[in-house]
């Protein structure tokens, strides 16, 4: 890293653009997670590169959400090291503050604050971290709501007045409030109908391209994996079995991968994806 901050920033911006493969933004080494006698992770390693959409899959109970919670600092792992943008999520106050400021999480049900309307939900992080004039804050909130694809008449609605898909979009708008570099998504398409899920996938893809996001995406949705993920990390046997582009994952001879990716539903998703590709 060069000493001049401006040069550093430029370097970083270029890295974002070129998709520099050496730029690891999340690094997990030797992670152990246990609940009592139940071992969830043992010696888990994972790298996430800048600008990619990483799909994280695994059977129930393989600790996908636990892994995400360990990375963002919600759960202290029993052993191992985690680095997010070179900061330690379980380290000093400054490190944690930096991670909070530069990453964002979209929880499964959106986790919108129920007493606040959508605009106020987006503004929470802006109020907490930045001292902005209220007009500018309103403009930023409007921008994020627009980016997440919500109509403006939803901006003053309470979470209870929104449909499931709109809640997720509102949650995404809140996650984008501070222009994070890394976005964590916990099953973003769960509970959406196929049309809504496809639209949400499309949205994530365009936002990644426009905002230069790195996306850590936990999913069960085979369509999502085929449509938007650059690489797929498979959790099994208490570790990351493979973290590679989808064709390589599909080629791996492993019973779980065979059951998951070569079942009838997976074939349907793959065919649909191939058809969409050749049609376009």
């Amino acid at each position, binding site marked *: *890293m060069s000493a001049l*901050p*401006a040069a*550093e*920033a*430029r370097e*970083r*911006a270029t890295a*974002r*653009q070129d998709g520099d493969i050496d730029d690891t933004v999340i690094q997990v080494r030797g992670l152990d997670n246990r609940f009592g006698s139940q071992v969830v992770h043992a010696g888990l390693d994972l790298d996430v590169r800048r600008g990619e959409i990483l799909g994280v899959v695994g059977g129930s109970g393989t600790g996908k959400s636990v892994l995400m919670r360990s990375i963002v600092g919600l759960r202290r792992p029993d052993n191992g090291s985690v680095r997010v943008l*070179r*900061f330690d999520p379980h380290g*000093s106050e*400054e*490190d944690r*503050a*930096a991670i909070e*400021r*530069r990453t964002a999480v979209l929880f499964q049900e959106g986790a919108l604050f*129920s007493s606040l309307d959508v*605009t106020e939900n987006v503004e929470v992080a*802006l109020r907490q971290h*930045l*001292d*902005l*004039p209220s007009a*500018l804050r*309103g*403009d*930023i*909130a*409007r*921008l*994020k*709501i*627009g*980016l997440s694809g919500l*109509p*403006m*008449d939803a*901006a*003053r609605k309470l979470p*209870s007045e929104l449909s499931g898909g709109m809640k997720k979009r509102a949650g995404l708008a809140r996650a*984008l409030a*501070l*222009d994070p570099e890394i976005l964590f998504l916990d099953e973003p398409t769960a509970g959406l109908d196929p049309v809504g899920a496809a639209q949400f996938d499309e949205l994530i893809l*365009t*936002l990644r*391209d*426009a*905002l*230069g996001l790195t996306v850590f995406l936990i999913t069960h949705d085979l369509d999502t994996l085929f449509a938007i993920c650059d690489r797929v990390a498979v959790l099994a046997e208490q570790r990351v079995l493979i973290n590679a582009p989808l064709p390589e994952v599909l080629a791996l001879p492993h019973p779980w991968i065979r059951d998951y990716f070569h079942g009838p539903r997976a074939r349907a998703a793959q065919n649909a994806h191939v058809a969409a590709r050749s049609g376009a």
Partner: protein
Amino acid sequence: MHCVPGANASLARMTQAVSMPPRFEVVRTAAGVGAHARGAWTVDHAAALSTELSAGVVAEPVRIDASGLDALDSTGAMLLLKALPLDAGGAPDLGRIEGLTPQRVALMRRVAQALDGGSVPPVAPGALHALLANIGETMLSILDQGRQLLGFLGLLLTTALRVLPRPARWRLTSIVHHLEQTGLNAVPIVALLSFLVGAVVAYLGATVLEQFGAGLYTVDLIGFAFLREFGGLLAAILVAGRSGSAFTAQIGAMKNREEIDALETIGLDPVEVLVLPRLVALLIALPILTFVAMMAGLLGGMTVGATSLDISPVLFTTRLQESIPPQHFWVGMVKAPFFALLIALVGCLEGFKVSGSAESVGTHTTSSVVQSIFLVILLDAICAVVFMELDW
């Protein structure tokens, strides 16, 4: 973000991307007015940037050179769009900006598109307007609530009349279950609280009446108070808090899980299945609890009389029999079924009004308790006046 020299390494790393303050410099040349955008145009600098822009806006730059940008995020892109002159269509003219990488141009387009959706509807009008609107809304909702309560009463009565001639549909198991829940299980708390209130009233009465040498009239006070008013009121308030809320929560949770809809699709009437047994149970339980409260209150007074006021239990009961005719007991008892009807009605109706979220169950449970206690006390006050005028 401010960074003192020599601050620790992680802070320096944290600010690396945002440390160059953004600039918007207007330059005038022979060719016209131009502007240079430099530095990090990010959300961290948004406040400073918007001040800078509002100062530079008078110049109305013709072209913006953005090649000096260190960083640009969506907030920065939004502010940059604001600095651009508008094209013929009224949108920011992206053609007037130079030196952007293709990725940043894409970002600008995406942001422009996101902002195109119109404006956020206003939050609320002024405070006075909001106050008046609030008063109006509350009044309307009270009226509406009254109307709904009467409607529900009618529905309940017609259902009861329909079911009454058919004992096979009386749902005895359910009635007995609710009798246990609302009646038997409430006996200890009703008895204990009434006993304590009885003791307190005895002390109060004695303190005042002793001054006139009329300490024995404490017995009259306790008798009147508990038989006519306190017994029924205490029992009803406790049942409203205990069972009215439970009715709302139970029916509300069933509504949430679509159990009510399931009942209807099977051809069962939710009012008959859920409300009637609760109402019948409460109609039986509350008079019994009222009786328990009366006796416990008298016992509390008697205990205080015997221990601290020199009124022996024998004297207490004799005095009670002499000075309180049985009509006072009946004045107290006759109100109990009406209280029961109110509590069951409000509790069940609020349960049916639950919609959607778990939060809604909480809101309606609170509302159910407040309403039923309010209505019980209101009815009691009306009865007190009426019975007084009738000289009962």
